[in-house]
């Protein structure tokens, strides 16, 4: 560009041009602003309206009432009991430290609780209550209520606590509830409901697995609050929806009866309705008391439970595995018949059986026995001989079809299914060939055979019906149609007859039902846990409890037209006939003649030192004394 002299005229042109540019830029920015505002107010309107509403409206959640768990007849198993609680409303609190000190005095709050309250108070938003105490005794609740005017910001209210009328008898069945842990809070995407003081969620057992049904929908008081958490006004509340009621197939009375009848043993009992697979009772004892957990369990209570060698924290019906012992024999006999063994053919039992350089024993010298005799008298040598003749390949499938090793779809998170071995399994698992002694061990339910008590009850049901009975615990689930098992009716009749013989004149003759016209068929089992000598085994006092054999029994009634199946495994109970069979006898009696069964139970409980609650209290006191703890104050009614 050539150099030129700038004149006033030039300057005026430049000015006009630049004014146009400036005006244009201003107009453009004005347009941009209007466009931007349009974008925010029209295109993004929905998003921002939502954000504005979530600013404006806060929900003070009202926890839903937890659904009940009821038994098959509608009797409550888990319900909610009115309880009293005390909270602090930070917004209304005037002199925090002074009020807390007054509460500490009125309610006997321990120092670490006071510290917790002070801490939570400093972290809380204005309208969210801070829990002072849960499950407050009525006297303290009343003491707070009458002093309300001098305690601004303190709210005493009625809430609900989970209550299990049967106490520890249903502990392993229902599990327990408790306040959500930090991990559970994170897992539910920081559900604010879980932070409300007093809200409990299922932690174990049915309470946990049925949580989605039982919890319900929280409602809430919708309030308008300022950015600083000050309440402006209350809006229409959002109603809460109580949790759904869950009906179990359990018969609560029967369940509690069986639990009490277990006494001081460590055992599980399962009672089933063979016609539809309904589980009528499934106690595992000893158990924790779920009521203690819903009050919040102390360190000491927990310690006591976890140190107990009778494993009160394990559901023995589903989580513990045991060798089946001789209870496997009826199914083995079916397998033998299926493989073409002649039931009349006799085997001479000399009390011992030689295989290679190892001798297998029988619990006594039975002499020559046919199949019926071998089942009735539980002769091991007969089954060693015959099973070896037929071979494991033909045995395992039959035993499995009877329910051992089978997985059942039940609402429990932890279940163990056990094993019924076979040559393929042995190769896969232990990389070795199946040997003759494996067949010998399996034939009497030892070795690799592991089952749980539920499977034992299922086996009894299937032997009773010849059908594939599937257990059911939730009434809402449809009954699984029962298909016919691949068993000859003639074989089945024979086995049932043999099992009737077991109770009538065999190993379980002591477990005959005290009922007219109703006869039980069953099979005892004694599962070895340690190698004890024959004399030691017979003497309950010599072997320590831990080394004793497990005692098993399975049965069905009435033998000629089966309706119920019952099975039990008593840990270290000794001979199946001695402990397990009478337990089943009394439980089954309860199904037909309650007064008679209850009389038997009362006599039994008297012999072992009182009712379940009395014995539990005594045990706790003894434990506390042994651990140098002060005795507990008497419990509030």
């Amino acid at each position, binding site marked *: 560009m050539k150099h030129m002299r700038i004149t006033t005229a030039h300057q005026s042109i430049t000015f006009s041009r630049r004014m146009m540019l400036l005006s244009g830029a201003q107009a453009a920015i004005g347009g941009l602003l209007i466009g931007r505002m349009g974008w925010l107010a029209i295109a993004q309107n929905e998003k921002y309206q939502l*954000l*504005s509403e979530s*600013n404006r409206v806060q929900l003070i959640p009202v926890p839903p009432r937890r659904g009940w768990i009821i038994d098959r007849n509608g009797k409550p198993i888990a319900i909610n009991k009115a309880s009293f609680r005390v909270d602090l409303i930070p917004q209304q609190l005037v002199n925090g430290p002074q009020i807390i000190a007054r509460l500490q005095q009125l309610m006997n709050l321990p120092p670490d609780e006071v510290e917790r309250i002070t801490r939570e108070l400093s972290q809380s938003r204005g309208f969210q209550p801070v829990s002072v105490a849960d499950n407050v005794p009525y006297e303290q609740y009343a003491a707070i209520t009458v002093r309300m005017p001098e305690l601004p910001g303190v709210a005493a209210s009625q809430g609900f606590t989970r209550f299990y009328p049967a106490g520890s008898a249903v502990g392993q069945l229902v599990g327990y509830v408790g306040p959500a842990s930090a991990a559970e809070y994170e897992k539910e995407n920081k559900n604010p409901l879980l932070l409300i003081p007093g809200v409990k969620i299922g932690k174990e057992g049915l309470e946990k697995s049925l949580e989605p049904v039982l919890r319900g929908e929280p409602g809430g008081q919708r309030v308008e609050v300022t950015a600083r958490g000050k309440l402006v006004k209350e809006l229409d509340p959002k109603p809460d929806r109580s949790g759904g009621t869950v009906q179990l197939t359990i018969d609560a009375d029967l369940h509690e009866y069986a639990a009490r009848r277990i006494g001081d043993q460590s055992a599980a009992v399962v009672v089933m309705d063979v016609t539809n697979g309904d589980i009528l009772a499934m106690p595992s004892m000893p158990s924790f008391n779920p009521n203690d957990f819903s009050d919040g369990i102390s360190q000491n209570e927990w310690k006591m439970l976890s140190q107990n060698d009778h494993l009160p924290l394990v559901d023995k019906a589903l989580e513990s595995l045991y060798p089946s012992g001789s209870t496997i024999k009826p199914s083995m006999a079916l397998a033998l018949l299926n493989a073409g063994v002649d039931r009349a053919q006799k085997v001479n039992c000399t009390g011992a059986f030689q295989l290679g350089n190892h001798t297998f024993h029988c619990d006594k010298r039975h002499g020559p026995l046919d199949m019926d005799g071998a089942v009735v008298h539980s002769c091991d040598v007969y089954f060693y001989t015959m099973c070896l003749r037929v071979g494991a390949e033909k045995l395992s499938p039959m035993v499995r079809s009877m329910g051992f090793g089978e997985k059942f779809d039940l609402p429990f998170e932890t279940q163990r299914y056990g094993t019924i071995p076979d040559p393929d399994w042995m190769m896969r698992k232990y990389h070795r060939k199946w040997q003759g002694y494996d067949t010998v061990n399996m034939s009497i339910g030892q070795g690799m055979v592991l089952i749980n008590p539920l499977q034992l009850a299922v086996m009894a049901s299937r032997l009773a019906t010849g059908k594939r009975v599937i257990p059911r615990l939730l009434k809402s689930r449809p009954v699984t149609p029962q298909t016919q098992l691949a068993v000859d009716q003639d074989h089945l009749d024979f086995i049932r007859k043999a099992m009737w013989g077991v109770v009538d004149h065999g190993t379980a003759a002591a477990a005959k039902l005290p009922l007219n016209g109703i006869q039980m068929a069953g099979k005892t089992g004694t599962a070895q846990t340690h190698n004890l000598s024959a004399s030691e085994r017979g003497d309950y006092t010599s072997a320590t409890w831990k080394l004793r054999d497990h005692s098993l029994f399975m049965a069905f009634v009435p033998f000629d037209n089966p309706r119920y199946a019952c099975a039990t495994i008593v840990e270290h109970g000794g001979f199946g006939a001695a402990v397990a069979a009478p337990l089943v006898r009394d439980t089954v009696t309860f199904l037909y003649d309650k007064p008679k069964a209850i009389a038997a139970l009362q006599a039994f409980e008297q012999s072992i030192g009182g009712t379940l609650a009395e014995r539990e209290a005594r045990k706790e006191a003894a434990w506390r004394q042994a651990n140098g703890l002060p005795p507990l104050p008497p419990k509030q009614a």
Partner: protein
Amino acid sequence: MITSAIIPRPLAKLPWRLIFLVTGIAMFGLVVLYSAAGGSMHPWAIKQAMVFFAFLGLAIAMSWMSESTIKAIAFPLYGITLIMLLGVEALGFVSKGAQRWLDLGPIKLQPSEFMKPAIVLTLARFYELVPAAEIRKWRAIWPALLLLGIPALLILVQPDLGTCIVVMLCGVTVMFLAGLPWWFFAAPAAAFAVAAPIAYGFMHGYQKKRIDTFINPDSDPLGAGYHIAQSKIAIGSGGVWGKGFLHGSQSHLDYLPEGHTDFVFATMAEEWGLVGGVLLILAFAAVIRWGMQVSQNARTRFAQLAAAGLSATVFFYVAINLMMVMGLAPVVGVPLPLVSYGGSAVMTVMLCLGLLMALERQQRTVSRVI
């Protein structure tokens, strides 16, 4: 202009269109302040009304000033304001704290506010004095740079980034219109791109944070990004027609910070919606357009430059504030003139408009003479 036999001549000669516009904006502002106070004249609307009418009166009075008077006071006004800025700085140094105002008994004087019209008048006067032939010479640039740079720096260290930016933009606008060469504007723009990160390093913590959150508003949604986020929620949730007078939840429940000062537009938009916002923007556009026309119709170079610069002052106030509340610019603390609560902004804008009215009256008088 109203021509009627009933209205006396001096009144009829007032630029009524502008006065109506400005009064309309201010009245709307009072309505918004009334709502922002939760439906009360106290504490803001009543005070704001008094301040507004006082300065409106002052502006109208100023409209009788002659152009030569304005020219004559340009340099002295600038000098006094500069001395006051230095005084504020010295005071701040003595009291070891940030200081923006001089406490003069009943009123607190914020000299940086006076600097906005002062810098416009000074530069307009300066470029009037520069002969046309000299305009592209270095001689025409460095004095202006000094005149602008010294007060801008003084305001920046107060620290008042918002006012500093407005003062700078006003000065640069006058220089641009004066016909300075293009490179003068292109080069600093390029330099800014380079220097911005360095300047960032020298900023105060809260200034840095505001820029951080402008670049990434979600980085700190509950801290510094909160202002912009809540402002956008208020504007966006208002929709086309708004939530209705006294029904803005964002402002009434205190979610919107500074809802009566810097973010008053968001308070307004929440209750009056896009319609209210567009109307307000158009009203401001009309005011600025009026000022720009005064510049275009001006006969003298001083009047041209001064009128354009003063209109630009109003423009930058409005534009920066709106960009800020809509999330298009960092939060720099520039109020929305006539609407935001606070006397300083009203004073500055009314001073600018008073000067513009004076220049406009001059045009009419002169044209009538011709």
